[in-house]
């Protein structure tokens, strides 16, 4: 049987089996979760090449094959999906409706696989929608409070999906085919405004999932309110489906050369998304929300990278996309571990868990370093390529905006680490223990993966370059395991950098640790220099409220701009309009009779128009 279909079947069968098994025994359920999660990983990496699969349904030809770009994202799906599932076993322990949770989890994983292997628009759309509603059902898993969030999510997703559907039917009319490839070929022959319309519709659809301004409004809430085990996949992978679609549309349709202004607009939207989401991330008090906004910001970089459309920026975009999947999954897992162990995710309450959860802290720190783009980890590689490509392709002011958001990202990166792990200890968290093993394993797995990919970005760049050379229409894209070269021919050796950083760090760390080691011992963080006033156990001088107040003051004009308010006004207007339409049904029978007569009279008045036919 076809291996792609088998992978799809594993996920979908896993969904049903898990739901059924949950009725019988929890152990059986967990076993199925792990098996159905890990089996695709094994299958995916053991099969060198996937065969295509083709069949016909409802008068449409469906064609499944894994493209070279999709291959990268599929790797992300199986790996992060499996890790999240393993993590979920511990994380979700003791919660209700687990059968439902895992079912939707598997459905969304399966649908993502489906999206990636769809070579035709119809099955692409079908899987896209399955992904939407399955993820929606997990967003609202946490009950009552998530209701409105879920509705916002589904509303925007539906809007996006329908925009896409419009484009799909238009393509079907124009080309008589629903294959991606036929569409790519036929695109050049379409009229210019038609091209633009279809691109806008597609990008609208993908932009929703990729949380592009101004369609990002759902993202932060949805990411932060679904169970963290799922958010790892949700923010890490699911949002990348939007990126995948954007990549296909932007590059395959050559929008940069065909519609330069339009692609510039998208690039700028990405950059503005990054900047605004970043400054919103750093005033959040909930770590989940912080990470959620950070996800939006990171997606902004990715969108910019793809929209600029040069070989290097595209590479940077995809590289960041993959990397974001890894480190954001790790970070959400950290948030989940903290939530599970300490019972809260509020940074105004959390403090000083570093000694309680050291391994979690290490994961968080490595992931944050990767996120902030600090060398030698992978985020730097992506950012570096992005900057170089933007400068190299004359987007000087774009690079400034991106740089601003990436600098501001240090602020929330620090706040994340400080807010959870550092600061003054609190009696309340004295009992907190390190996360359970099943949660630590995926977290540490990502830690190792991040370190390795940071030093040897070629692991990711290789497949990306392969995809660009063989599927995306770029020519002669070069890559090396650990060397980055920019458009001017300057190169940096990442292994050298890593070596220097690590060696210097170890030397001084050893110096600091070993010097006077016998006399140095640990005291609690209650024992601080506090103008001679001893800190009593019930006091806590942890600094968490209004953490970046100076920044807020300095950036006050930016904070005044709130997309949610604009949308709030629009939705208020719509709802009152709906209220009006509803009032048309006044309840008085005679009014309805009037309507009928009015209808006839109007039609008779306009009957000339009807005669003309």
């Amino acid at each position, binding site marked *: 049987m076809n291996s792609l279909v088998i992978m799809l079947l594993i996920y979908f069968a896993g969904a049903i089996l898990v739901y059924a098994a949950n009725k019988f025994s929890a152990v059986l359920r967990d076993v199925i979760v792990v098996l159905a999660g890990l089996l695709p990983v094994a299958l995916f990496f053991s099969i060198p090449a996937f065969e295509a699969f083709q069949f016909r349904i409802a008068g449409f030809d469906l064609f499944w094959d894994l493209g070279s770009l999709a291959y990268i994202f599929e790797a992300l799906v199986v790996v992060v999906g499996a890790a999240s599932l393993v993590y979920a076993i511990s994380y979700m322990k003791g919660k209700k409706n687990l059968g439902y949770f895992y079912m939707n989890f598997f459905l969304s994983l399966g649908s993502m696989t489906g999206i990636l292997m769809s070579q035709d628009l119809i099955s692409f759309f079908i899987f896209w929608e399955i992904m939407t509603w399955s993820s929606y059902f997990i967003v609202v898993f946490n009950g009552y409070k998530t209701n409105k969030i879920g509705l916002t999510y589904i509303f925007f997703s539906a809007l996006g999906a329908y925009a896409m559907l419009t484009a799909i039917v238009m393509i079907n009319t124009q080309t008589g085919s629903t294959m991606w490839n036929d569409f790519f070929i036929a695109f050049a022959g379409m009229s210019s405004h038609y091209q633009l319309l279809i691109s806008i519709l597609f990008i609208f659809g993908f932009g929703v999932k990729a949380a592009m301004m101004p369609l990002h409004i759902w993202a932060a809430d949805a990411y932060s309110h679904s169970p963290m085990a799922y958010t790892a996949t949700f923010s890490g992978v699911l949002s990348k489906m939007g990126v995948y679609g954007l990549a296909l549309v932007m590059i395959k349709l050559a929008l940069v050369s065909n519609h330069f202004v339009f692609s510039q607009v998208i690039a700028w939207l990405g950059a503005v998304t990054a900047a605004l989401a970043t400054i919103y991330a750093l005033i959040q008090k909930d770590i989940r929300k912080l990470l959620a906004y950070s996800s939006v910001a990171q997606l902004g970089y990715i969108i910019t990278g793809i929209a600029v459309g040069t070989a290097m920026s595209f590479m940077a975009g995809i590289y960041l996309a993959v990397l974001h999947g890894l480190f954001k999954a790790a970070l959400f897992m950290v948030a989940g571990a903290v939530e599970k162990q300490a019972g809260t995710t509020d940074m105004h309450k959390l403090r000083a868990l570093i000694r309680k959860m050291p391994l979690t802290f290490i994961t968080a720190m490595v992931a944050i370093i990767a996120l902030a783009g600090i060398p030698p980890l992978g985020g730097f590689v992506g950012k570096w390529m992005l900057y170089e490509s933007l400068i190299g392709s004359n987007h000087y002011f774009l690079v400034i905006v991106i740089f601003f958001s990436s600098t501001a990202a240090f602020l929330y990166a620090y706040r994340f680490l400080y807010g959870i792990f550092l600061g003054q200890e609190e009696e309340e968290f004295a009992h907190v223990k390190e996360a359970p093993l099943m949660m630590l394993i995926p977290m540490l797995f990502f830690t190792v993966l991040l370190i390795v990919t940071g030093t040897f970005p070629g692991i990711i760049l290789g497949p990306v370059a392969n995809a660009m050379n063989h599927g995306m229409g770029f020519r002669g894209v070069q890559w090396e395991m650990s060397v980055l070269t920019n458009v001017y021919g300057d190169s940096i050796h990442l292994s050298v950098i890593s070596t220097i950083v690590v060696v210097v760090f170890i030397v001084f760390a050893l110096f600091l640790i070993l010097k006077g080691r016998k006399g140095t011992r640990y005291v609690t963080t209650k024992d601080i220099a506090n*103008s*001679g006033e*001893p800190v*009593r156990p019930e006091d806590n001088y942890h600094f968490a409220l209004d953490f970046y107040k100076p920044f807020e003051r300095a950036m006050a004009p930016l904070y005044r701009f709130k997309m949610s308010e604009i949308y709030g006004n629009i939705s208020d207007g719509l709802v009152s309009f709906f209220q009006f339409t509803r009032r048309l049904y006044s309840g008085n029978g005679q009014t309805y009779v009037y309507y009928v007569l009015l209808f006839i009279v109007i039609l008779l008045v306009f009957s000339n128009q009807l005669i003309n036919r």
Partner: protein
Amino acid sequence: MNDKNSQKIVDVIKNFARKHSLFVLAYGTGCGAIEIPATMTSRYDAERFGIRGAATPRQADVLLITGYLSTKTLKRVIRTYEQMQDPKYVIGFGSCTINGGMYWDSYNTIKLLDMYLPVDIYINGCMPRPEAVIEGFIGLQKLIAAGKAEGAKKYKENLDWYRANQKKVIKNWVMPDYNW
């Protein structure tokens, strides 16, 4: 060169550096605090002796107690002193720290600081002028160079005695233990 000699040389270097780099934590309790700015700024310029202010006890070498100490303040001073790292020195500043000065019959003022903290050197006067302050510092420097400024050691050795004295005047003794 044996260990002892090398140790000696190292000690000399260390003491030289210590002597010329005094980070002062000025505990401005009484009227004496007004003299400190004059001492540090242009006219008397204590910085030329390597004396500069420290912001927190963690960084400080010298605890400068400028004036009378009420029993309430004493607790904070003790805490501050205990948070300083070895080697550390205490300077009693003004007559109040020696015998209570003009507060000699006050019911809640510490009369003799030495009962509670190991004072290395006193600067008398009410108030001591900046010249006197500098003189005091130079005296401390001399003691350091000679390796005789061992107040901290004394405090450690006679901790029980000091504690007993301290607890006599401080009623609500809630403090972490001093054990370095």
